[in-house]
């Protein structure tokens, strides 16, 4: 038989028509495939999102870096009014960590949440007292026309700042911020640079969400001079805390030594800090976490997908077997009028594939929507890739083919005379 497009289209059209005659039945049969395909796409989207997020975060934090943060210990005294909370990283910690041989560089910061003003506009932001090598250590790049803090700014405790891109966008719409003065707590600072925008991804697990695009960097010495070392936070009462350094960022040259170095830092800090007032973050660990997330979702959704697809396939086979029985006489007629066995096979396999592919199509739509919902409510990044959609759709077609073959073969092998006599 000559294969031509119009012939194939006609087989598909008649197949579709037959399924349309039993709309509810066809729809119910599709459901297994729908869920299977949706799960496949959602699984891949969540896995992809997790590793994308991890890669972005690593880019943001530096792949060879270890970050040590001061955290308020859980038993910190906040109940007593006049009490001063002292916790976190100190310059003695700094010197000890600095002397670890595997460490290439260490930078320290002092930070505070403040309202940032330009003329009559303001936005909450984070003041980061940093050293000139902070930019390099954190892979930060300054937009053309500006620069990052340098040694002179540091030595002279100059009132200069480098602002994050979101600060620029909210306060300086349409205005070049370089040379302009911003105000923080009645102190004025001259903007000397703008940091290139970084993609902000909500943190996963221990990596807290902080949008570094709202950072304002100024020399560490300047920060101490203007803001002192005691931070007053107004809760129900004045909460006074004293933190010398909020963050150390350590760069390890040899990435194989990151894990051992972070363990060593932990040991050093634990020996002097009685309270758990620091935490150590290893961006590289993020990849492991992402892999872990990916693995969990792969197992859970992968099983759902596999079960749904198998159940869906069996459902299709079941319905096709019923269809073949119902239409025995039609098969006899077609055979009598010249249909070959393979024509009958094509006809019924086509119907099975239309069923599964329609299920696949609906599943693709659901599979694109579900990750969006997951992103919205679980705060996880999800990425639906084209290839995952194609893969899932291909699987649905393959299921239709696999489970459609047996009923179709059964139909094709019917004796034409017996089929014609069937009541």
């Amino acid at each position, binding site marked *: 038989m000559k294969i031509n497009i119009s012939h194939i289209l006609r087989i598909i059209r008649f197949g579709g028509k037959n399924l349309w005659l039993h709309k509810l039945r066809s729809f119910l049969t599709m459901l297994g495939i729908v869920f299977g395909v949706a799960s496949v796409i959602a699984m891949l989207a969540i896995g992809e999102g997790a590793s994308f997020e991890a890669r972005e975060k690593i880019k943001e934090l530096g792949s060879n870096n270890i970050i040590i943060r001061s955290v308020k210990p859980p038993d910190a005294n906040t109940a007593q009014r006049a009490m001063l909370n002292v916790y976190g990283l100190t310059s003695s910690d700094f010197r000890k960590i600095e002397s670890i041989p595997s460490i290439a560089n260490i930078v320290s910061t002092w930070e505070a949440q403040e309202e940032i003003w330009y003329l009559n506009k303001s936005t909450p932001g984070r003041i980061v007292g940093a050293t000139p090598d902070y930019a390099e250590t954190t892979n930060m790049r300054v937009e053309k026309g500006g620069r990052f803090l340098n040694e002179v700014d540091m030595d002279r405790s100059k009132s200069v700042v480098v602002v994050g891109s979101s600060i620029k966008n909210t306060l300086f719409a349409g205005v070049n911020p370089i040379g302009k003065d911003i105000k923080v707590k009645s102190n004025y600072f001259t903007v000397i640079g703008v940091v290139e925008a970084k993609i902000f991804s909500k943190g996963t697990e221990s990596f807290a969400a902080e949008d570094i695009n709202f950072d304002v960097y100024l020399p560490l010495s300047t920060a101490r001079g203007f803001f002192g070392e005691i931070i007053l936070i107004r809760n129900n009462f004045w909460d006074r805390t004293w933190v010398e350094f909020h963050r150390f960022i350590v760069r390890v040259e040899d990435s194989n030594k990151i894990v051992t170095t972070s363990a060593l830092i932990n040991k050093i800090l634990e020996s002097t800090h009685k309270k758990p007032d620091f935490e150590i973050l290893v961006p590289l660990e993020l990849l492991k976490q992402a892999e872990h997330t990916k693995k969990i979702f792969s197992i859970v959704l992968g099983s759902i997908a596999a079960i749904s697809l198998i159940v869906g396939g069996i459902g299709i086979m079941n319905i096709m077997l019923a269809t073949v029985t119902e239409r025995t006489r039609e098969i006899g007629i077609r055979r*009598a009028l010249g249909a070959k*066995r393979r024509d009958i096979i094509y006809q019924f396999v086509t119907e099975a594939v239309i069923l599964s592919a329609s299920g696949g199509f609906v599943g693709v739509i659901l599979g694109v929507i579900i990750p969006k919902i997951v992103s919205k409510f679980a705060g996880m990044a999800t990425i639906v890739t084209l290839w995952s959609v194609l893969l899932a759709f291909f699987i649905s077609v393959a299921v239709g083919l696999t489970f459609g073959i047996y009923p179709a073969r059964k139909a094709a092998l019917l004796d034409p*005379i017996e089929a014609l006599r069937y009541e």
Partner: protein
Amino acid sequence: MKKEIINLNNIGKVYSLGQVEVSVLKGINLSITTGEHLSIMGPSGSGKTTMLNILGCLDKPTEGEYLMEEKKISTLSDEELSEIRSRKIGFVFQTFNLIPQLTVLENIGIPLFYQGIDESVIQDKALELAKLVGLAARIKHRPSELSGGERQRVAIARALINQPILILADEPTGNLDSETGKEIMSLLIHLNEEGKTLVVITHDPKIADQSKRIIRILDGKIIDEN
């Protein structure tokens, strides 16, 4: 002398139902020449339909030799038999055998579909034949919306669309009133006059008399021929 299209040589057909063997056709010898009009008569259950199915390469005899255009049918594969049915034979069944979910036009076009012919060509030819059998106004209807006579005419149109050399009609007028029956028969006889070989099963002596040759079957044997 005219060419022989069909030659049945000592054909027998046995159905085995478990232990019991039913011999439906016994020692049938028959030859039909091209362009002939033959009627087959006989009581119900005598084996007429079975014989027609064998002639139409739909059923295989359990005994004897069937030659169609000097070709041995028994040695052909299922695919080759399908090919013969598709190209050479036009079936008009006792029970119409239209496909319920297809329209009149689609039903008429089925045999060409299995020849792999283009859809537009099929549509044109099917419409032409629908006109021939007087159903041009009903092409979009489904078989369930037609009367018995109209269904039979669809079946005839379908049997003709592949321009068969052999038309096999199993009681084509059995379900029709005599007036409609006459119309259908004159349609078939007209085709026979155009050169197609026509084999008609009938219970109606008036219809049988329209053919030059009548064979009678009883209990699976040809008992009489004139």
